[in-house]
């Protein structure tokens, strides 16, 4: 059995693990990244492309997102890759007065937190987004929303990390954790032990399995999101589009029930955007179905029914594929980041649900700085696992 020693082990080759690996190499630390399958083979490769500011809850969540957003414009050049990054802005379509009341309050709180966002009348909204249905009574607009290819971003982080000296190993499955007297000492893989004083759990929806190796119960659950892909077409959708129902589904799905009970069960809300290739990505659902990544005709229909009500031109468009990804849900919608009480050297970096792409740069930077000992961001205290353990 091979045995080797590293400074830092990162478990998980999704966008979060790859980002941490990259930012560590920038600080002169050369981590070993262990990925059971392939880079970008899980959640990061089965999501949409939005870097959404408008969907973030005003407070720490939005603050982190804005900071992360500010890191994106120069990132492609820094990583030496085209990331299909654009800041075209985003809009949230409002369909009735009840949603309007909710969105007015939400937008007011976002403005107070420094997000540039406004509510446009239906006609103003259709000037900016001609594809909106006449039934859209108003829409928010924020120039801060952007988009990026999650695939290109994840591979670019991993390749740049490798160039910087990180040892990125795919097909390397972690089967156990080595601990001694409340300290982590490494991991056991199918190919032997790897020893390190720091082990980062960036395993996303599989983070709870890694946590159990350390005797930790992590409140992360897989939440399925189904997405529909259309044929390519000339530009029809400008920037990112969400429905107010998407925001409601994210924070309070029960409120949708009176409008559409099936949509409430599936957590349906519209999130749509057009890729560089011209295809539309139309999401999505929020479903607790364990680790099942199947697509279902019920969800396809529920998502498309809602999508057509906001973007009527879609009725004549061809669907070429459907897919599903599992998002790492946490009870408060915030990721679990940083050190864990009682197990020195074990670092959490998981639970971003649908915000992993948007928050990847800031997560990588904050955690790399913490691990390299450069600085401990005070916010890591609020994002620690201990926030869920205090109630016990």
């Amino acid at each position, binding site marked *: 059995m091979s045995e080797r020693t590293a400074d830092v082990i990162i478990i998980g080759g999704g966008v979060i693990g790859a980002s941490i690996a990259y930012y560590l190499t920038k600080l002169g630390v050369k981590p070993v990244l262990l990925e059971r399958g*392939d*880079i970008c083979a899980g959640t990061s490769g089965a999501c949409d492309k939005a870097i959404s500011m408008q969907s973030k809850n005003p407070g720490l969540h939005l603050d982190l997102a804005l900071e992360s957003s500010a890191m994106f414009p120069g990132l492609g050049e820094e990583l030496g890759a085209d990331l299909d990054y654009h800041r075209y802005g985003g809009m949230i379509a409002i369909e009735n007065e009840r949603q309007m009341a909710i969105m007015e309050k939400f937008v007011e709180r976002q403005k107070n937190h420094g997000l540039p966002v406004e509510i446009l009348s239906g006609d103003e909204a259709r000037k900016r987004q001609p594809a909106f249905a006449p039934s859209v009574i108003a829409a928010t607009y924020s120039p801060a929303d952007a988009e990026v290819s999650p695939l290109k971003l994840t591979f670019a982080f991993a390749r740049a990390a490798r160039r910087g000296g990180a040892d990125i190993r795919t097909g390397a499955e972690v089967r156990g954790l080595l601990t001694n007297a409340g300290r982590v000492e490494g991991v056991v893989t199918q190919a032997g032990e790897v020893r390190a004083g720091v082990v980062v759990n960036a395993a996303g929806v599989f983070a709870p399995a890694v946590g159990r190796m350390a005797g930790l119960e992590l409140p992360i659950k897989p939440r399925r999101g189904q997405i529909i892909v259309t044929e390519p077409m000339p530009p029809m959708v400008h920037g990112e589009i969400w429905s107010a129902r998407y925001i409601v589904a994210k924070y309070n799905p029960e409120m949708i029930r009176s409008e559409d009970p099936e949509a409430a069960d599936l957590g349906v809300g519209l999130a749509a955007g057009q890729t560089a*290739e011209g295809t539309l990505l139309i999401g999505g659902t929020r479903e607790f179905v364990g680790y099942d990544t199947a697509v279902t005709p019920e969800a396809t229909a529920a998502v498309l029914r809602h999508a057509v009500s906001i973007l009527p031109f879609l009725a004549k468009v*061809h669907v070429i*594929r459907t*897919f599903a990804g599992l998002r790492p849900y946490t009870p408060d919608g915030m990721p679990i980041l940083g050190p864990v009480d009682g197990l020195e050297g074990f670092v959490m970096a998981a639970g971003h649900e649908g915000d992993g792409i948007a928050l990847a740069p800031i997560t990588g930077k904050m955690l790399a700085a913490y691990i390299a000992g450069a600085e401990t961001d005070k916010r890591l205290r609020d994002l620690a696992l201990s926030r869920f353990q205090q109630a016990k």
Partner: protein
Amino acid sequence: MSKHICRCEEVSEDEIRQAIADGATTVTGVKRRTGACMGLCQGRTCRRLIVGLIAAETGQNPAEIETSSVRPPVRPVTVEALLSPAGDTAGCKGREEDK
């Protein structure tokens, strides 16, 4: 310039070999790195060619190389056809148009 393997997304043989050199050992791995198989035909033509290239580059047995997952719809179908009740004429029309 090397020939196109994925015609829909215009991905060349060189790009696919580079993806394999980058660590792709499955069709999905090549797909996520290059965009091959992501176009209109969803890999109907190039999936087998990519399996052949992975086998040639890595020495794996072609029969054991994981191909990309097949997801609905089987071929392009309009949104309105998907939303119409089963057997409805709009659904049939959608399928006719695709022939």
